[in-house]
């Protein structure tokens, strides 16, 4: 019987395997950031261990770095300590670090692919759940906790229970690919299969609706696999993948021979079987807006805030969850999504802060001014994205419209750096989580695509971007 792509990568990385127990899996790349690593390095020191493969370990700082002027000292003392701790740990253990002043600094899931660290067929881990992003390149990539970070630092391996393969087919052609984006595809999928629909699985995305996407858009899809509960997302590499990685800073010297191998081997066999299947048809999907406090609580921009009993379809816990969510979000059932007024706009995060995202958003903004009651910021995913965007003049388009143009980092995706919402503020955000308090205590998050966020910024409320000229 044939194998799925996931099974092929898994099998190629088994160090120890026994029946009915987890396997010891070799890890090809380990990405490290300041928040989930300090205890892991402490653990190494306590036990007199070294990092087994510093050459396969790469660090950056992203979660709590301020995104304003980088020449100023970091005011928040605890953040400053966490950043200095990472610097010291990388120095002590011989790990390459892209620090706050490096031109390669950025969100760990943005810089990995940009630097050619992310490679097809490899295993990649990071102490961060959105490591699933790298699956867009046909890598098996997933988030781990701090104890596991320590285990990988010490041994370059990990004990893992084998997830089950889940096939999601995305079929059809979007009528307006500028207005209906990869973000809308993945939000639609999560809305349909639920936030635990992918639990215990690795999702392989297939079909015309996926091969049509650029690498950056594929990353948006794989990035949010974790929001469906999956361990990882995976897309078989194709010519777009190989082209994207060609000539990057860390792309291996024997790249072309690797490509030949990948082309022949990194795909699911025709007779392979999946544990689960789901198909989304994208011909007619609308831009998506989340209304609740998890990414599954999402609807079309043309719909209204749902009634909890309709949303829950008879499930009591779901109903209670929806009621709580509406209370937290201060939304009334039946309110048209397009009538929801917003205070803030955040274009950023590892889901949607790549060059493509900023280009698309800038089309909505160009030559106009921000709605007077909205504060909006654009936070490029990496310093490299920022530089490329500036070369295209995007910074000017955004600042002319009164957006803030900031330095790279996680920023307002999570409330652990100075960029946060005030209690009660409502934000259209291109990030991936709308959990209570995620963007700051009491803040209210609506997840949308970059074009939807930009349009909301200009109008002061959500609008259906299919009605705009985006070409």
């Amino acid at each position: 019987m044939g194998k799925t792509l996931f099974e092929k990568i898994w099998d190629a990385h088994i160090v120890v395997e026994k029946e009915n127990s987890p396997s010891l899996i070799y890890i090809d790349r380990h990405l490290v950031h300041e928040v989930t690593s300090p205890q892991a390095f402490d653990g190494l020191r306590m036990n007199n261990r070294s990092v087994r493969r510093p050459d396969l370990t790469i660090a950056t700082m992203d979660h709590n770095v301020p995104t304003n002027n980088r020449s100023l000292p970091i005011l928040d003392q605890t953040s400053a300590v966490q950043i200095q701790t990472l610097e010291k740990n990388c120095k002590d253990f011989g790990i390459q670090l892209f620090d706050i002043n490096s031109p390669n600094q950025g969100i760990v899931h943005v810089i990995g692919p940009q630097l050619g660290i992310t490679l097809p067929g490899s295993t990649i881990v990071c102490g961060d759940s959105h490591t699933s992003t790298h699956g867009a390149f046909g890598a098996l990539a997933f988030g781990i906790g701090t104890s596991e970070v320590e285990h990988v630092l010490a041994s370059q391996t990990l004990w893992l229970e084998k997830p089950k393969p889940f096939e999601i087919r995305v079929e059809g052609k979007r009528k307006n690919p500028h207005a209906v984006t990869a973000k809308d595809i993945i939000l639609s999928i999560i809305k349909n299969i639920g936030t635990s629909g992918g639990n215990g699985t690795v999702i392989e995305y297939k079909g015309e609706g996926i091969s049509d996407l650029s690498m950056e858009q594929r990353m948006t899809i794989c990035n949010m696999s974790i929001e469906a509960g999956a361990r990882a997302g995976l897309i078989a590499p194709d010519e777009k993948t190989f082209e994207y990685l060609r000539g990057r800073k860390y792309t291996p010297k024997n790249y072309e021979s690797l490509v030949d191998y990948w082309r022949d081997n990194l795909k699911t066999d025709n007779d392979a079987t999946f544990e689960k299947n789901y198909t989304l048809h994208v011909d007619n999907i609308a831009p998506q807006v989340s209304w609740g406090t998890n990414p599954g609580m999402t609807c079309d921009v043309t719909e209204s805030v749902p009634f909890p009993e309709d949303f829950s379809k008879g499930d009591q816990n779901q109903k209670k969850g929806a009621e709580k969510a509406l209370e937290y979000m201060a939304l009334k059932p039946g309110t048209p999504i397009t009538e929801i007024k917003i205070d803030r706009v955040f274009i950023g995060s590892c889901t949607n802060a790549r060059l493509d995202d900023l280009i698309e958003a800038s089309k909505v903004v160009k030559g106009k001014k921000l709605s007077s009651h909205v504060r909006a910021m654009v936070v490029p995913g990496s310093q490299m994205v920022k530089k490329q965007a500036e070369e295209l003049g995007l910074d000017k388009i955004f600042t002319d419209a009164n957006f803030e143009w900031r330095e790279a980092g996680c920023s307002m995706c999570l409330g652990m750096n100075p960029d946060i919402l005030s209690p009660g503020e409502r934000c259209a955000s291109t990030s991936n989580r709308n959990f209570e308090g995620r963007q700051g205590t009491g803040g209210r998050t609506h997840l949308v695509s970059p074009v939807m966020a930009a349009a909301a910024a200009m109008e002061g409320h959500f609008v259906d971007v299919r009605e705009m000229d985006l070409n």
Partner: protein
Amino acid sequence: MKGNVIKYERDNIDTDVIIPGQYLKVHDYAELALHAMEGLDPDFHSKVKEGDFILSGRNFGCGSSREHAPIALSHSGIKAVLALSFARIFYRNAVDGAFLLPIEIEEDAYSNISEGDELDIDISSNEIKNLTKNKTYKMKPFSEIIGKIIEAGGLFKYKPD
């Protein structure tokens, strides 16, 4: 293992509400514990006692991979979380660091057990006794490997045979 229940009747309790992002900078576990569950239940700290259990619905611990989540719960006294299901990273974090036991329960236990009930959990027989209501429920047994890691006292103490 005996303790009282703090019940949250909902699904998808995420790690952002278990320990909000602004505390991920905190290195001191005792201080971290002061902010456990703050995003959902600001009174948690004043009501939790050493040895308590949390009871909740499906997909407990979804979201961010922060190990701070089981650490904060564990250091505030929680010995086990009983839920209909768990998100994988939280589950592994809880077990790997020997912070607390993630126990999967069935619908009957979930609906029957109330806030404040005293439970006696016996993982050798996979039974949960409700001492307050004089009832017994089954818990889902740990897989072999998870059982071994728990027995060893965490991932780093576990030696495969």
